[in-house]
């Protein structure tokens, strides 16, 4: 047995995702039933073997190669080599045909379809967001290799990857036998001298920082700022009347610095409310930059901050805290639905 490789401090279940042993008494609003809720686990941990698929992961880890397999009878090539026998071809004795394994594949291919981009990542994947997950066809393979796709140009926006986009396989510096040891970038983002090279590691590419820049201050933005601030103030002032909005903010505490091209303010999320403070917030948990204050007024009317971030109208300094943005996005619908219900009554 070889030595154990570790990502020190990185746990298969993040420590902060594990609750303490707790219970609470809750009242179900519909029928006023009094119920006991308890925290419970249901988990198993594994030393899971990749079995007959191990050569694929070993080739990635040790040689920075992607391997496939080929059926000697029908010539079907598959990558990844997700099986070792061809189910299509049956021998005369009705058994499956053994595939030729260890076929080295090219490391430039094309995307089978437009890959989805995940912004709403759960705890296990928040550190990668936003990430795309696509399928790449390498060489003569009939099957597509599932793969994460990244851009070296910053925030992963729709349009960078499409069906047919040529991509290059890039290898992580630290490879431990997972399907995240490799990923794809658009071929046209790869320097010319590396395009044909195999086994390119992530450190050989130049990655644009995701650090946010300050908003551009203009007179027009300054002029619009008081109106936007008023709209936000009115909007957050409606939360105490909305049980749904308060539920959205349950147990969520954040100091958010909002910077616009017309001025700054803070949103203090605490105790199921949001308090608006003018100017600079000391030691904010999250910085939200929305250059044009009119977009913030749009948010109070139901426009989505997530959409603004994705379209480049807004930025945050910590993509791992998208959950706060999701919560801010939920508020309009919650307030509206409660207001509609009150209206019906």
């Amino acid at each position, binding site marked *: 047995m070889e030595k154990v490789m570790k990502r020190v401090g990185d746990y298969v279940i993040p420590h902060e*995702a594990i609750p303490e042993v707790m219970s609470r008494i809750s009242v179900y609003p519909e*029928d006023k039933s009094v119920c006991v809720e308890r925290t419970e686990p249901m988990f198993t941990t594994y030393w899971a073997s990749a079995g007959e698929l191990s050569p694929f992961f070993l080739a990635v880890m040790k040689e920075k190669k992607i391997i496939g397999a080929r059926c000697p009878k029908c010539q079907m090539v*598959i990558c990844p080599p997700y099986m070792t026998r061809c189910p299509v071809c049956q021998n005369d004795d009705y058994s499956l045909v053994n595939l030729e394994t260890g076929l080295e594949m090219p490391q430039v291919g094309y995307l089978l379809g437009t890959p989805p981009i995940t912004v709403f990542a759960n705890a*296990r994947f928040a550190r990668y967001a936003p*990430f795309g*997950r696509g399928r790449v066809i390498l060489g003569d393979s009939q099957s597509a290799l599932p793969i994460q796709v990244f851009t070296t140009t910053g925030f992963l926006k729709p349009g960078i990857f499409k069906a047919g986009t040529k991509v290059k396989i890039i290898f992580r510096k630290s490879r431990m036998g997972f*399907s*995240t040891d490799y990923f794809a970038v658009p071929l046209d983002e790869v320097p010319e001298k590396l395009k044909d090279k195999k086994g390119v590691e992530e450190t050989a590419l130049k990655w644009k920082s995701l650090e946010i820049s300050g908003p551009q201050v203009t007179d027009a933005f300054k002029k619009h700022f008081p109106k936007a601030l008023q709209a936000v103030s009115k909007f957050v002032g409606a939360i105490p009347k909305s049980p749904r909005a308060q539920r959205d903010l349950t147990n969520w505490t954040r100091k958010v610095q909002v910077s616009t091209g017309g001025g700054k303010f803070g949103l203090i999320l605490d105790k199921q409310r949001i308090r608006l403070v003018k100017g600079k917030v000391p030691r904010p948990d999250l910085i939200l930059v929305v250059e044009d204050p009119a977009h913030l007024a749009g948010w109070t009317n139901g426009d989505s901050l997530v959409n603004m971030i994705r379209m480049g109208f807004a930025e945050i300094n910590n993509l791992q805290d998208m*959950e706060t943005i999701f919560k801010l996005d939920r508020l309009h619908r919650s307030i509206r639905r409660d207001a509609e219900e009150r209206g019906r009554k």
Partner: protein
Amino acid sequence: MRKVPKRKVAIVGAFTTPCRARWLSKTIWELAQWAVSGALQDAKLKMDRVEAGVIGLYNDIFARQAIPECSFLGHMGLAFKPLVRVSNGGATGIYAFGTGFDMVASGRHDIVFCVGAEKATDCYDFMSETQTPEVVQTIAWSWDPLFERDQGATAADSYAEVILSYMDQYPNDLKMAVRGEILRIMCEQAKNNPNAQRRDEIVTPERVEHSPWIIEPAFKKLETCVYTEGACCLVFAAEGVAEEICKDSGQPPIWIEGVGFANEPYWWGTRHPHKLPGRIESDYLASKTAYEMAGIGPRDVSVVELHDAFLPQLEITMAEMGFVPLGHADDLIEKKVMAPHGKLLINPSGGLIYGGHFVGGSNMFSAWSARRELIRRGLDYALVHGTGASSSQYGGAVVLKRGVI
């Protein structure tokens, strides 16, 4: 050659619990028991006449118990009789339906109940202090652990891949204005379903337009199905027995005329035997088989209760099932196919987006609604559809026909 069952099977009773985002006051046992009891009352049938049962339970993690079906048998009055658990991803309900049908059509049993239940939102993510990430994570465990799961595959992006690859091939289809109108109609229809989860909501095409993208440009927040807790039960009876039960209950038998299933392979690729981009072939094959068995085509169908995990997938599935051409799914609205613009009722329950989606029983809930509409409106044929698993691999379709007492 047209395949017909050994003997005919009818739905003679049905009941669904109200759909809720969370039933804090009920366990999954109670929900299932409530549904079984309701269905038996609907059929005016005593439990001792039921010979066997099928239970659709989507996954063990939501149920907080491995092999959770073991604890249901006694609750439902089925002690010392056979109970089969079916779990087939999002299509669990339709596959459970098929299993119940087979048990009766084969001649093994005369009366069988088919129940599906779900409690999903006990799952809770203590990092975000909401349920959704943990519910989504639970579904994400369905991806293969070697090649895809570690890459962050989620339930939503599995359907998104299918939708995006369809849009690659048909960039002028699935227009947002059409999607918004279908959603408006389904939201309106949910108000006529006493058990719908989102009965009080008002959705307009404008609100759809403004809602956040979940996966751009595949679908927005208002286009996604909800997580639901609830249960539904259907009672199946064989020809000869069904008529007698229906005479007592005063409700017509709903004959199961056609049943079809097909599963696509897990791995995507450029040709068969791989899953192909831009298609949901499982829906095409399942509905084709069901139509052939029933001896009808899409033109004969008046009501479709379709598994709408995401709105654009509804449109693709309608095309795969032959109601509109592939690449022209927007004809549903633009060519006035869908009621009230046209004649075809699509998801009068509100579907899984507005009615509710309790995975183990959602497709039974769809069958419950289809039966209700056939009887209430005096229509002849309905089509019930289910899909599921990563990349909407699993497809099931059932043709129902209103009989007479």
